[in-house]
């Protein structure tokens, strides 16, 4: 009974302290979303921060987020990022951090926002498991096929096929990757999924395409990507604007008309100036 009364008094007091604590009044609650993305060359952690403004959660810009691996201690600090105007920020692992993360079977990452004068503190964590994403690019009867196999390796070294893993097929393009094939591609009980690659995609001048195979935002693995440059595209002809005569070309390739116009203008004006200087010399000569 005594314990209940003490607890009740404690709760009431803490409630009052929340009501009357001026420091807590203006601080906005925040939400933090953390995602992992990795491929053969890099590992990135993407953070999205929303803060509550006028009863809605909106992207919070300029928020400093601390990223840790395994546990939140100073020695495990990976780095910090500051969110952009869209509330997002991306941290790319250093080569040493990348190498170390590659060797880890199950990694845990934390994103921590320290409380400041505007925002309440917040931390969030994700756990990322190692996965084998093997991809084969095969042409069968003139049909381009991509075969994907998703497995995990257990502690004894055996590979275990992973069923129901969503795979996305994309082609790298200048602004953002272009999705190809079906929207949903799910691995079967053998961990396999395949897709028929289209023939009509323009590539570079030699027909090269960079094909990306991705596990996207998976609960266990995060986002994992395998990519390969392959000649499965249609070669395109690129006219190099810098070697043509144009306004945006190098100085050696300025349009002839512009060169004629500017030089004629300079010659005309400077011709007049020299004519007048000549007249000045004549005035001087006449006056002797």
């Amino acid at each position, binding site marked *: 009974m005594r314990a209940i009364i003490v607890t009740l008094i404690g709760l009431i007091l803490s409630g009052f302290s929340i009501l009357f604590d001026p420091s807590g009044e203006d601080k906005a609650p925040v939400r933090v979303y953390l995602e992992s993305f990795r491929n053969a060359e890099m590992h990135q952690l993407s953070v999205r921060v929303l803060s509550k403004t006028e009863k809605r959660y909106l992207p919070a*810009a*300029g928020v400093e987020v601390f990223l840790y691996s395994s546990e939140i201690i100073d020695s495990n600090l990976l780095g910090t*990022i*500051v*969110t*952009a*105007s*869209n509330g*997002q*920020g*991306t941290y790319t692992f250093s080569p040493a951090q990348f190498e170390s993360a590659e060797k880890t079977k199950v990694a845990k990452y934390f994103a921590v926002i320290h409380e400041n004068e505007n925002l309440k503190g917040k931390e969030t964590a994700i756990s990322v498991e190692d996965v084998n994403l093997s991809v084969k690019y095969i042409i069968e009867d003139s049909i381009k096929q991509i075969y994907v196999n998703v497995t995990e390796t257990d502690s004894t070294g055996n590979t275990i096929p992973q069923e129901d893993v969503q795979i996305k097929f994309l082609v790298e393009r200048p602004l953002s990757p272009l999705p190809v094939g079906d929207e949903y591609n799910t691995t079967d009980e053998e961990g396999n999924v395949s897709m028929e690659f289209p023939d009509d995609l323009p590539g570079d001048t030699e027909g090269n395409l960079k094909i990306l195979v991705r596990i996207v935002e998976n609960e266990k693995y995060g986002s994992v990507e395998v990519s390969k440059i392959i000649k499965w595209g249609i070669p395109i002809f690129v006219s190099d604007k810098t070697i043509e005569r*144009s*306004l*945006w*070309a*190098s*100085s050696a390739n*300025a*349009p002839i008309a*512009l*060169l004629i116009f*500017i030089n004629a203008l*300079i010659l005309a*004006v*400077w011709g*007049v*100036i020299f*004519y*007048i*200087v000549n*007249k*000045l010399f*004549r*005035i*001087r*000569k*006449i*006056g*002797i």
Partner: protein
Amino acid sequence: MDLDQKSTRTLNYFVPQMVTISKSGILQLSILILFIMGGFYALYIQIVDGHIVTGMRDNVVWGLYIANFIFFIGISYAGALISGILHLLRVEWRHPIIRIAEIITIISTIIGPAYILLCMGRLDRLHHLVLYGRIQSPIIWDVLAISTYLIGSIIFLYLATIRDLAALRDYPFKSKWRHTLYKFFAVNFNGNSKQNRYLERGLNIMSAIIIPLAVLVHSVLAWIFGMTLRPGWHSTIFAPYFVVAAVFSGTGVLIIALWVFRKYYHLESYITKIHFNYLGIILMILGALYAYFTFSEYLTSWYGSETWEMEVLYKLFDPHEYWWWFFFAAIVGVVVPILVILIPQFRSINSITAVSVIAVFALWVKRYLIIIPTLETPLLPLQDMRPEYIHYTPTAIEWLLTFAGVAMFCFLFFLFSKFLPIVSVVKGEEGTNYAELRKTVMQRIIKRT
């Protein structure tokens, strides 16, 4: 050289003022030198510590310096257009004012580009402009146009002062160096008919060529902005808009300079109310034209509702950002001069000068508003964005260099006035006076009828 009575009287009036300096003059000069020294100190800090001492950052890469550059190039129009046009039209009342107008042109064309150098991070790479410059770039056009314009303006002023230099050469100065100097620059001019003919031809050609050159200089400057795909800049009317704004501010500075010299050298009999009235009317017409361009520019941007254009417009119309400055630059600085000059009861030498001050300051603010709000509107979201990356606030160093530029402008004007009479002393044998010619033709027609 033989001088008529009027010229001799004018010369005798100006020479004592050229060779002496009053106590108050020394004090004013000391204040100007103090500001200039302050500028040099700021320059030293900027060179030693780098551009971090300015408010300019990766995003807002142009600040007060470029606003000053456009402002000074703008006021250089005073000499080019006003003296050029008045000379070509043989307007009689031009004589007391064109010298001042031409000096404004030269000084401001020297000081303006200096701000470009201040804005550059690596002055040691200045020669790269010549080595690697692209003829397609409006910046190269600007360099070519401004340097040609400066030389053209110097020649124009020189031609217009040769007669005075010859008169000063023949004046019995006590100091030998003055005599040597004037003798060198007077190029043996003694006023014979052939010399007069050559001189007048040169003046006519230069006054004809300086007008398109001046238009070109400011158009090129406007194209640097207009050809950039940035909100608030990418506009087809920017070139004529800049030209009109430049003549507007140039006329304003000319009126202020006339008022100052009239007061300082007691030139009430040379620079009269007529000059202020005529220049005031020119200012009023230009103000109306400028208002028309401003309205047209912002109306089309607003009506277009393009996202990034609107971002800039919101900044200009936001009372927490630039609204009050915009209101001053686009409305007060235009409406007040027009109203004061339009209503005869308000029109006086002092009121015309006062509204010119308002117009000139408004035009400076306008240049600031052209540059900063646009650069504060990045086209892509920035990662690791900090407020100082986006928002620009001029630092004390930039203000010191700005005031130093204005002080240098006044100081060089003062120096000019110590070497040359600020008003033309000797009138030339001019060609056709179109006003006189028109009068004669009209009289003939009346006689016939």
